[in-house]
């Protein structure tokens, strides 16, 4: 059974979270993400979930991590300034391997910036915002419907890999209303629970795929959770072999499952000679620009990463080998374009169309870039 409804992007996020089994929300008000909290507070009591408004974003993610350790699927949502504050606990959840979902509805920055304007200025912060070497899983929906689907996916990936998963979209998607198919029979994944003797349980002893099972506090497994570098038993260590093993494993569990995590959408790429690389709301404008270019007889195509991190290097490399020109368009002054250049490695000319002035990138301006970047050749 499915239901089609007209919903706002931030509402779709809340509905997706509920469908994925989220039963705890801890957050702090910030534009343009606050509607997520306002929907969660109404939805959660009906499914025996709990909502709490915390004193700041640091505390919000701490409460989410606490709730996750108590066995609840848990999330928080924020925007750039709050996302900066959450970096501390994104690192903690990565190190302690506590599943959780963090939504960043991007607005103009840096600092307080443009609170009600769209931006894609946080995509590198989502990858590298917290200190130390760490993996990252970051999903970037481009429509309200995709916000619903990817919120479910984010919970599934968080549970599957025992790691924080970040959903990142801009103010336009957050505040746009679209018809969305809200599927009632969604595929939901839950964390692996241990089934052996609690006395012989060690929380960081991982099976072959690198993801250890995680019981909830109160289930009879007494264990230790720390952000300090720790051994397989979960206790602090400064032994270099044990430190190396931990940092390697938390990277590898994401890296070896890159194919499973990575999702890339392509559009009219088969015979394309010029392609646009765009994500989130810019991916929508780019799709329209590609269609208009095709109508004008230009062989244009689109590559849109749905998973921003891990970055789809091989997909981009493949496109770069095929096309003459790869236009990278993002609502920042050049963040993922560096990764595209790295993946393309000189196989295509990279043209940036970047802006960070609070205005969306339109299909018309992208069409102009396509036409002036060699796409107008007969």
């Amino acid at each position, binding site marked *: 059974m499915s239901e089609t409804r007209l919903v706002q992007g931030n509402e779709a996020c809340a509905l997706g979270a509920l469908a994925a089994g989220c039963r705890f929300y801890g957050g702090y008000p910030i534009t343009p993400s606050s509607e997520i909290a306002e929907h969660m507070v109404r939805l959660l009591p009906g499914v025996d979930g709990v909502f709490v408004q915390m004193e700041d974003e640091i505390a919000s993610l701490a409460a989410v991590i606490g709730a996750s350790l108590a066995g609840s699927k848990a999330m928080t949502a924020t925007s750039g300034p709050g996302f900066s504050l959450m970096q501390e606990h994104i690192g903690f959840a990565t190190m302690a391997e506590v599943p959780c979902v963090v939504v960043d509805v991007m607005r103009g920055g840096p600092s307080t910036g443009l609170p009600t304007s769209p931006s894609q200025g946080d995509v590198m912060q989502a990858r590298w915002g917290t200190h130390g070497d760490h993996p990252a899983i970051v999903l970037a929906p481009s429509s309200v419907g995709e916000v619903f689907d990817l919120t479910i996916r984010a919970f599934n990936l968080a549970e599957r890999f025992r790691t924080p998963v970040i959903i990142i979209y801009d103010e336009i998607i957050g505040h746009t209303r679209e018809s969305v198919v809200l599927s009632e029979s969604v595929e939901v994944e839950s964390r692996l629970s241990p089934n052996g003797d609690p006395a012989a349980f060690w929380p960081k002893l991982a099976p072959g795929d690198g993801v250890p099972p995680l019981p909830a506090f109160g289930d009879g497994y007494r264990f*230790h959770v720390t952000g300090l570098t720790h051994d397989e038993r979960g*206790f602090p260590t400064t032994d270099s072999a044990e430190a190396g093993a931990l940092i390697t494993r938390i990277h590898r569990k994401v890296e070896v499952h890159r194919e499973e995590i990575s999702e890339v959408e392509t559009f009219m790429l088969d015979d394309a000679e010029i392609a646009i690389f765009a994500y989130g709301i810019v991916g929508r404008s780019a799709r329209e620009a590609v269609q208009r270019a095709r109508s004008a007889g230009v062989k244009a195509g689109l590559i849109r990463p749905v998973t921003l991190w891990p970055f789809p290097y091989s997909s981009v490399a493949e496109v770069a080998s095929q096309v003459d020109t790869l236009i990278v368009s993002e609502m920042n002054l050049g963040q993922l374009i560096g990764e595209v250049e790295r993946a393309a490695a000189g196989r295509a000319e990279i043209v940036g169309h970047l802006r960070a002035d609070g205005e969306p990138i339109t299909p018309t301006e992208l069409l102009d870039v396509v036409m002036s970047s060699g796409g107008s050749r007969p």
Partner: protein
Amino acid sequence: MTDVKSYLRDWTMPHVLCPGCAHGIVLRAFLEAVDQLQLDRDKLAMVAGIGCSSRLVGYVDFCTLHGTHGRAPAFATGLKLARPELNVVVVTGDGDGLAIGGNHLIHAARRNIDITVLLLNNAIYGMTGGQAAPTTPEGAVASTTPAGNTEPSFDACKLLIGAGASYVARVLAATPIEMTKVMADGMSHRGFSFIEVLSDCPEYYGRYNNVGGGAEMLTWLARRDAGVAGPLSSKGFVKHVPSSATPAGMMTGVLKREARPVFAGVRRIEPDES
């Protein structure tokens, strides 16, 4: 009565605490209280931040969360809201709980969430090497106040009473039997209970302020009679007087006990609960 050693993860020994540090006495008093109350160790969660006091949770055989600096009350809030049947105890220090984590502590108190916070106040940052804390008395020497502390210090209990904690007590690490009694009382209280323990740091505080080793420091803390701030020097610094570093005039015992509604987050209320 159970041997309190059975609550320890013996394989984690030796511990990180310095000779003369009273934090071990505090931990023992706490375990005695856990034993007196016959708490189910599977349902006891201890949450800590960063610092010497926070390392205690690694040594006890409960569900233990060693979080980030100052944030323990926020982790504990999520844990308790998601699983109310857990007994949740936060262990924090004066730097962890009153400086970097001050905001989380006062908001947990304001909400009256049903957790217990033990704040081990040794009046200094021990783990990082003896820097001044918000509890370092005026005039006292720390590695970042070589000429004597010029900042006024917090009275943690007054702060928590103001923030709305429904149970507030202060005990001395030098009086372990009283400590156990107060900890059992605080953990039995329905709502947010805050217990400040006046502990010691002979390694830094004791050395810098000529108070002596562990035994001397605990005796000195127990006397609580010598604290007179030194006169201001012409440069505005408080002239260092060793005896000015005592927490003079701090009352011990249960300072506040109040019955008020316990915070459970926004959730469905069962008819029989309302």
